[in-house]
């Protein structure tokens, strides 16, 4: 799993039928302190995440392991919305930060 920030939505009308009704989110990878990294991912939304949310994203075959994405041709899924991350008793990144 990687940390990511939702930065937008991907809208598409013509797509694989198994993706109908699924929301696609454009996510920018961040480090565990919330600082943006270079890579972007398009991920299916399994938790109704909104733009700006800090989320956890699973990739690869694990992305198909939600009810939302079962047997669908996806390799990234947003599977948790992060409230905060606590490392060594310090809250390093909190919801709505940055």
């Amino acid at each position, binding site marked *: *799993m990687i940390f990511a920030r939702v930065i937008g939505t991907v809208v598409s009308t013509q797509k694989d039928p198994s993706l109908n009704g699924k929301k696609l989110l454009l996510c920018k990878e961040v480090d*565990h302190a919330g600082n943006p990294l270079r890579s972007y991912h398009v991920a299916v939304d399994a938790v109704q995440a909104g733009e700006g949310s800090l989320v956890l994203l699973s990739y690869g075959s694990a992305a198909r392991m939600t009810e939302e994405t079962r047997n669908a041709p996806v390799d990234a*899924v947003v599977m948790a919305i992060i409230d905060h991350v606590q490392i060594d008793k310090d809250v390093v990144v909190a919801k709505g930060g940055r």
Partner: protein
Amino acid sequence: MKLGIVTGTVWATRKAKELEGCRLLVVQPVSSRRVATDTPLVAADPGGLAAPGDLVVYVTSTDATAAFPTGFAPVNASIVELVEGIV
């Protein structure tokens, strides 16, 4: 299977149904001498085994999914053992 030290916790109220009741922990990969070897990662703890400070064994990729009783969870890493000592 790799060694890591749990350094933190990821708090997430809303998560995929498959992960309900499962804690998500930040794990620092380490060598057998507890020296950091790679960047930290987030791992699920399906067995509720670990807490911050613990030395653990974790698995990645498809095996991470197999660590769940259902074999069906959207995770890339799972903690599977709590290490008591290395001899």
